[in-house]
């Protein structure tokens, strides 16, 4: 966190000054490790074993926060008798189809819910899970039926053998301190210290927080890493309470915003699923399969109709399904790596690349460049001429003779972009906080904001439309933002106001609960409704901390409804009283008959704790006064996910796709549902291969930003980390013959790169399964060009294209490699070396 979020890390430093104990779990000793109480080096790709053992420790010793667990989680819920665990099937859950490598999740459902539970479920849509799976062909997620029961059968004594609590106990029993030592390389003593610290620091009086970044997500089991942490935090009562939670340290500059108002193929603004061709012909079809009808997701018609009204205005009427037919449709998987494969296959002809540099930043860059070279046209918008725009004249494939400039027919358009200080708008930060940025100066020359580019491109396209039916969606689109200045910059505030939404009187709405299903309201993103409440740009608020309470509700604006901590009803006990004075956050004021507290209550303000839903209730009315997880169909925190995930209702440890070791826990080596590509452009290292004996992991340094497009051209940053280097332990350096400051050659099935050597005790060999495992660390900021003052080989070229089946994130944090002393060969000789490894 100190490495990649140094500004946010100041609060960790401050917490520690105030007595917090901080652990850092990371393969190498980083700038974060330097400032914490305990650093636990871990083998990359083994975190589920560590987290699972913590869960087992909590369950075995009865250390869970029982009142919280009983009231607020699905611990007591009884699961279908058809469910089979990895315990029963040696590493598989029930429902696996080896032909397609996909799960049918229907047997994971709650008792009595039958097949219906497999319907898209809200929590996973929020993470993009179910929709991804659907787009990948797991159609049953979207077509299985309506919502699951809000009131499944339960056993409050937690003794029923099929209740979630008992299933968890059996499932995690094999995750012991001994397996942590065997698989992660973390000693039993260190594990005991961690386990003692987190359990002692949870309960009524105290809370524990976990923070993670892509070290948890970029794995073939990435979504399940987060699930494991969620189970642990729910058991300890650390969700929805101050100082608790699981904090995703997302990318800088609005990565959170880019999923809220998505740049993803499978969701619409506010995590509404993207409709699927043939399955979702009408709005009713779509809504029937777009998530549960109970909980706040039950208002999905209001969210969707308001979005359609924002986009198609007066043209959207009840009679024409509010122009639902105008929306584009999915036909399958259109994710990043599949798109690249389709470029290579010749079916994808054109490509917009805005603020990305996939030729350097994506795994297996060689495949990316072969895709780019096979396009008809390519539009790149960036601050500098990044490698994605210049691969055709200076890419590494030219040096090896695999490509020749004269053979590449791709027409490349480079459009210079404005930087963040040269445009206005919002950033949505990692904690869902929208903050308005003011423009400091005009962009130079032809540089323009992304907003300006998209808006004016849209205007020009609309000028060329025919009266043809196929052009109707674009013709009827509301595309009329006020333009400002001689450069006709569209007003970002007008866009934010459209996202916020307006009521029948044309005035800005204040909250998503005001959205209507009848077309009388418009809203560009339901979770952002309220950011322009009272016709005021709430994201631009900067009230100093000393002038407001410690939750600081007037600093920017957080979605939804300016709530700073989600599910904060859980910060009070079932009767609505704070769990403790020390951790008081939101509580029920019986005298006034409403919820109150330091934060905006994440609950209906006047629903009393003793409210019980009538039979057949829908939306939020179906949830009781003790159901804090208001976006879930049953209002509960899910220890066991009865639907929505593509690779199991519970996390299980699988080795990375490329691992030097077998799976010590199950007969299945790697995640059986992981996504691989069978193409000569995406070769894989064989598992447990002696030719690739070392674990490879990648990361970022404080001094650079991602693939370097924004930092390599800047002298003040480039001089601080001027060359690509690999970090190796003194033991590995001795084994391979590497010298500090010298050169190393790193080899995978994809390619061969060279890097300077940094021999450091901050990387330690680990004893795992009776073997010494060496890890090689590589920061990935360099490439051959991009206006960089400093250049180097492309680390991401080494990585395999193998994906998590839920969210299609590549496994960038754990692969295998070989290491050789000296510089790599160049030209044809480089290909010969790869072939040598391939042929063994």
């Amino acid at each position, binding site marked *: 966190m100190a490495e990649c979020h140094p500004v946010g890390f100041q609060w960790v430093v401050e917490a520690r000054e105030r007595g917090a104990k901080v652990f850092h779990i990371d393969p190498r000793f980083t700038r974060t490790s330097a400032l914490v109480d305990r650093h636990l080096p871990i083998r990359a790709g083994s975190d589920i074993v560590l987290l699972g053992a913590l869960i087992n420790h909590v369950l075995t010793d009865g250390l869970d926060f029982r009142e919280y667990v009983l009231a607020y989680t699905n611990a007591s819920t009884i699961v279908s008798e058809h469910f089979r665990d990895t315990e029963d099937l040696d590493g598989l859950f029930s429902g696996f189809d080896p032909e397609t490598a996909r799960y049918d999740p229907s047997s994971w459902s709650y008792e009595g819910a039958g097949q219906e539970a497999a319907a898209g479920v809200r929590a996973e849509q929020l993470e993009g899970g179910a929709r991804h799976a659907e787009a990948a062909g797991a159609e049953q997620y979207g077509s299985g039926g309506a919502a699951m029961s809000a009131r499944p059968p339960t056993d409050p004594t937690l003794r029923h053998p099929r209740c979630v609590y008992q299933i968890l106990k059996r499932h995690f029993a094999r995750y012991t301190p001994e397996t942590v030592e065997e698989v992660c390389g973390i000693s039993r003593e260190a594990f005991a210290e961690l386990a003692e610290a987190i359990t002692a620091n949870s309960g009524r009086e105290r809370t524990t927080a976990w923070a993670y970044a892509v070290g948890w997500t970029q794995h073939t089991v990435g979504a399940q890493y987060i699930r494991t942490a969620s189970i642990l935090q729910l058991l300890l009562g650390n969700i929805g309470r101050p100082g608790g939670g699981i904090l995703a340290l997302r990318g800088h500059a609005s990565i959170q915003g880019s999923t809220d108002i998505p740049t993803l193929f499978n969701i619409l603004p506010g995590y509404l699923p993207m409709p699927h061709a043939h399955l979702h012909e009408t709005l009713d079809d779509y809504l029937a399969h777009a998530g549960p009808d109970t909980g706040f997701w039950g208002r999905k018609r209001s969210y969707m109709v308001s979005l359609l009204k924002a986009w198609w205005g007066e043209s959207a009427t009840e009679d024409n399904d509010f122009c639902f037919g105008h929306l584009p449709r999915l036909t399958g998987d259109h994710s990043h790596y599949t798109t690249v494969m389709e470029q290579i296959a010749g079916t994808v002809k054109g490509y917009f690349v805005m603020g990305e540099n996939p030729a350097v930043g994506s795994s297996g860059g060689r495949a990316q460049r072969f895709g780019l070279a096979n396009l008809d046209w390519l539009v790149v918008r960036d601050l500098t001429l990044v490698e994605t725009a210049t691969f055709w004249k200076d890419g590494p494939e030219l040096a090896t003779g695999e490509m020749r400039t004269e053979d590449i027919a791709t027409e490349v358009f480079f459009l210079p972009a404005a930087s963040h200080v040269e445009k206005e708008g919002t950033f949505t930060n990692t904690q869902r906080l929208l903050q308005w940025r003011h423009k400091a100066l005009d962009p130079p020359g032809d540089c323009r904001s992304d907003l300006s580019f998209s808006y004016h491109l849209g205007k020009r396209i609309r000028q060329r439309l025919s009266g043809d039916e196929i052009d109707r969606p674009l013709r009827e689109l509301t595309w009329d933002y006020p333009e400002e200045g001689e450069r006709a910059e569209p007003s970002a505030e007008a866009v934010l106001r459209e996202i916020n939404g307006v009521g029948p009187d044309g005035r800005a709405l204040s909250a998503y609960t005001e959205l209507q299903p009848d077309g009388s309201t418009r809203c560009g993103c339901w979770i952002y409704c309220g950011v322009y409440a009272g016709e005021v740009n709430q994201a631009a608020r900067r009230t100093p901390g000393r002038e407001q309470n410690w939750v600081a509700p007037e600093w920017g604006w957080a979605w939804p409804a300016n709530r700073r901590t989600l599910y904060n009803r859980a910060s009070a006990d079932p009767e609505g009283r704070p769990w403790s004075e020390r951790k008081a956050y939101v509580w029920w004021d019986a005298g006034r008959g409403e919820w109150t507290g330091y934060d905006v209550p994440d609950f209906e303000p006047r629903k009393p704790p003793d409210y019980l839903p009538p039979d057949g209730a829908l939306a939020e009315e179906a949830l009781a006064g003790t159901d804090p997880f208001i976006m879930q169909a049953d209002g509960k925190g899910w220890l066991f996910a009865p639907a929505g995930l593509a690779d199991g209702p519970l996390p299980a440890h699988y080795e990375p796709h490329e691992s030097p070791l077998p799976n010590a826990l199950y007969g299945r080596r790697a995640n059986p549902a992981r996504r691989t590509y069978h193409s000569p452009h995406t070769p894989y290292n064989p598992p447990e291969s002696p030719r690739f004996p070392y674990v490879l992991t990648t990361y970022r340094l404080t001094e650079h930003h991602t693939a370097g497009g924004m930092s390599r051209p800047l002298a003040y940053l480039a001089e601080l*980390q001027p060359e690509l280097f690999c970090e190796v332990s003194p033991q590995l350096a001795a084994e391979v013959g590497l010298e500090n400051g010298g050169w190393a050659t790193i080899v995978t099935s994809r390619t061969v790169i060279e890097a300077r050597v940094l021999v450091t005790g901050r990387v330690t060999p680990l004893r795992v399964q009776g073997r010494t495992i060496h890890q090689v660390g590589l920061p990935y900021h360099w490439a051959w060009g991009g206006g960089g003052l400093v250049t180097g080989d492309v680390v991401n070229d080494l990585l395999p294209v193998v994906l998590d089946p839920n969210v299609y994130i590549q496994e960038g944090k754990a692969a295998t490699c070989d290491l050789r002393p000296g510089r790599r060969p160049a030209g044809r000789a480089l290909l010969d070396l790869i072939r040598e490894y391939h042929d063994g």
Partner: protein
Amino acid sequence: MAERMGFFTDTSVCIGCKACEVACKEWNDVPDDGFVFRATSYDNTGGLGADTWRHVAFIEQPRRGPEEPGGREGSKGPPGPEGAEGQGVEGWLMSSDVCKHCTHAACLDVCPTGALFRTEFGTVVVQEDVCNGCGYCVPACPYGVIDRRERDGRAFKCTMCYDRQLGGLEPACAKACPTDSIQFGPLEELRARAQERVERLRGEGRPQARLYGADPDDGVGGDGAFFLLLDEPEVYGLPPDPVVTTRDLPAMWRWAAGAALCLVGATALSFLGRGGNR
């Protein structure tokens, strides 16, 4: 003269982000220092110089057994990775070095043009338009801070953002520091705060914590920019007992004058002696 202002650099909360180095260069328009991979932990700028006015040192402390001399058995400092003795690191020290703005500043003493001067904030600043590049100040500095820029010839170093101070702003490095490792303020206040801090750290079982440059009775009369260190100064590349290099100048002049007088006397005697022979 206004109150004497200073820097207190508390290395116990430095995260080595180098925001100070970058902010300093941005504000003061300091050129880059070359693009050299040094293979010395994460330090690629090497040290303070004409083109680096803030410099973050990175010191990897090897793990030592408790029985070894220097073993940190009493320390609750950041423990290193698990592993066998001799593996891993005990800790990773980071420290942002800067011009000390000495109370007795030798650079200022030796400057023949008056380019170096003491500001109303008690800091020591080079006036770029007066410096003639003689370079006398370079060997005069007991810390090796001030340096001549090769392609320019003149001497450069930290000004404690004299221009920002004149505008009522804190220096760029202190402003950019995310963890308040670099604190700027009236020197007396900083010294008091630092004393509290070092006592607290020692109380928490970090006996290695110490202040460096905070003592007005040291060889330079105390530094305007002082530090809280977590190990011996030498570990950070700092001189353990710096002395203003012009301290002995008056005595040296006296000796020189005496020597000159002796020489004159001896010469005179020699002539007298010859005269006697004649």
